[in-house]
Structure formats: C-alpha cells, structure tokens
C-alpha cells in the first residue's frame, strides 16, 4: 500500500467524530401518521397507475402522432402507438415475465393447449403471470439471464391490455397475415414496452407494483381463436412468420 493510504488508515481511529446523538427515537417521534394501504386503496392506486401509463403513451406528444400509426387494440392485450420519442422512463433489463414455473405445470394451469413454434425444442425457462386476467405464459429459448434469444408468450383474450408499446424512429409496425389470422409485425432497432410488474422482492401480492418499461426487439403478435401469441426475437419477418405458421401443440 502506498504511503499516504497507510497514513490515512493508521490515522482513522484518531479522527475525531462527535458522539452520535439519539437520532432514531427522535426521528420516530416526528414521523407522520401513515395508515397501511388497504386492498381498496391498492386497487385504486393500481388503476391510477394504469391510467397514467396509458395517458403518458397517448398524450406524450399528441401533435406527433403520425395519423395512420395508431394501431389500437387490433391484437387483444397489446396497444401500439407511434411517437417521436420514447417517454423518459426506467427501462428494466431483463423485463418481468412472471413467476418461474415448470412447463408441465404451466400446461396444466393455462386451461388451453400450450402451443410453441416447431423445431425450437423445449424452452429453457417458463414463466407465468397470473396476476392479471388472461394469464400469460412466457417461454424463453436461448440467450442468457439478461437477454433471451427468443421470447414466446401466449395469453387468453378478454383481459386488460398487457403491453403498451411505443414505437419511434426507424421502427415500424404493420399488419400482416399469419395464415388466416391477423397479426402485427413490429420491426426496428427499438420500441418501448410498458407493462406492470411487482416490486423486486415481491410477487403478485406485493403491494408495490409499478409500470416498467424495456426496449424490445422485433416482435410478431397474432391471435388464434381466443389466444394471443407474441414472438420476440432478432429475426426477419419471413423467419418470424415461418415460426408462427409452425405453431403446434406441445
């Protein structure tokens, strides 16, 4: 160790700090009254947060809408809009997919046959989100903990919006046909996705949920009957469609 650092370390015990006064007890006496949050208040807070996210997405730059780019709710559970720039927010990486679950258990819980693109093999990880009506199962193929190579989600229609998407810059969103079904292809260097996630240490019962965002890659989303599928990967549109058409039951 260098001389100065040695001198500092040797001097540390002699550096005079004043005695620590009583702080915790005094501060406690000054604390404002705070009632624990009730379930009603929690639900209200959740609704307000949802409205804020929707508001931010819809009203961030009203003059900047491209007019034809509002692709509202054509695929249930997804709301898409073009903006000049992404709202300033905290981007989470990796995003919250839900609770890890065994594939067999996910299959049992989903209430519909779980379907996956052919030739991908078994997913590396499977997650379930049961906190929102519609229940979403997400399978991760390849990649690492931070960035999956391919993310494949499926959820039942009839629930609320699960993803609020904002596309900017060179990103594009277009309708496309997936077999006889309508789908949306989102392509570009980035688009922002907002969704609801619990606190880091919590689960669906944690009271501190928040809207989170992350930057997604290319996405193909389409609906078959009462189930919506979403495939996210760094692939071309042709490859995404090929994967979508290969959907089989697993």
């Amino acid at each position, binding site marked *: 160790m*260098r001389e100065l650092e040695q*001198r500092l370390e040797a001097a540390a015990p002699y550096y*005079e700090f004043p005695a620590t006064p009583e702080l*915790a007890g005094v*501060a*406690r006496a000054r604390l*404002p009254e*705070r009632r624990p949050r009730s379930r009603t208040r929690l639900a209200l807070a959740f609704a307000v947060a949802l409205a804020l996210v929707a508001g931010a997405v819809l009203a961030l730059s009203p003059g900047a809408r491209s007019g034809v780019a509002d692709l509202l709710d054509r695929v249930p559970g997804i709301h898409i809009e073009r903006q000049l720039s992404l709202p300033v927010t905290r981007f989470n990486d990796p995003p919250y997919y839900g609770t890890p679950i065994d594939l067999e258990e996910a299959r049992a819980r989903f209430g519909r046959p779980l379907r996956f693109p052919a030739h991908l093999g078994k997913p590396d990880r499977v997650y379930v989100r049961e906190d929102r009506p519609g229940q979403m199962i997400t399978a991760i193929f390849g990649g690492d903990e931070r960035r999956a190579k391919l993310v494949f989600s499926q959820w039942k229609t009839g629930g609320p919006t699960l993803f609020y998407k904002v596309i900017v810059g060179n990103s594009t969103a277009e309708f496309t046909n997936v077999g006889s079904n309508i789908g949306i292809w989102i392509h570009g260097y980035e688009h922002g996705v907002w969704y609801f996630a619990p606190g880091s240490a919590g689960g669906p019962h944690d*009271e*501190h949920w928040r809207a989170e965002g992350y930057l997604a890659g290319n996405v193909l989303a389409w609906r078959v009957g009462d189930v919506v599928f979403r495939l996210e990967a760094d692939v071309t549109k042709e490859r995404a469609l090929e994967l979508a058409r290969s959907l089989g039951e697993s």
Partner: protein
Amino acid sequence: MVGRPPETEIVIRAKRGDADAYEALLRMHEHIAFRTAYAIVGSAADAEEVTQEAFVKAYNALPRFRTGSPFRPWLLRIVANEARNRRRTLGRRAHLLSRAADEAASGDPARSPEAELVDAERRDELFAALARLKDDERTAIVARYFIGLSDEETAAALGVRRGAVKMRVHRALEHLRQELGVVDA
C-alpha cells in the same frame, strides 16, 4: 433460536407503516448516517439536524424504495443530499479540523514515547492538510478512509454516480499528497 429478522423483512414492515420497524432500521444505521452527515456539514449540531430531517424524509419516500435492494446506501443518499443542501444554505466552508486524540492509544509496549510523539505529529499534519482540501475532496477521503463506506455509499455521500467514485478519491488523494509533500511511487 429467534434472531433479529433479516433487514428485508424489517423494510417490508416499515413500508407498510410500522413505525417500530422503521425505528429499528434507523438504529441499525444511525451511527454511520450521522458520521456521513458530519463529514459533509462539519458541525455536530448541523449533522444532527440534517440526519433527523433526512430520516423523516426517508420515511415518506419509503414506499418508493425497491424492496430487496440494500437499504443503507439508499438511506445514506438521502442523508447526504440533505447534508449537501444544508452546506449550501449555510454558505460556509465546513470545519473539519480534527485533533489527534488527547491520549494516543498506547498498548504497544515496543513503542517509545518519542515514536508516539512523532506519530501524533504526523497525524496532526495529515488532519491539517485534510482540512485544507476542498469540501468534496475531504468528504471523499473521510467517507472512504475514516467512515469506511463502500463505493456505492461513497457515491451517495458525494452525490455522484458509482463509476465516478474512484476518480474523485484518486483526485482527493493527489491533492492531499501535494499538501503533505508525499511522493508515492
């Protein structure tokens, strides 16, 4: 055996409005919080006020604290922000002249009174040089070497990002070397 609940448990209870839990959290960190405030404002009375004010603010901000994250750096950031605001308000240079202890710790029978006297003089010289540094540089040295804060906590005390801490400490050490005329290889 029933031990103290893990900090995360206490944080969760405090977030729900449990004042006992919050007080317990404060007790765990009040000592280091006070010293951090003192390192910034340079007066015991101001440090006490600042720390108490920060503790109340932290309570109000607690619902936004991310459960599972380390609590101490988060708390120290609030304390340090409050202390820096106070320092700006006071508009004066903090006085951190510290004296060597009246009674130098002894206990080493091999050391002669003369050697201890030399050590004490060197410490006085070091503390005097430290007092001549700019506020932020002195805070960096005190936080790192005398309070023993981590990188993240030192960043909180300095109000900079974690990545900038090394550079700040390095610069403070360089100026201290110049003040002392120390030439480290």
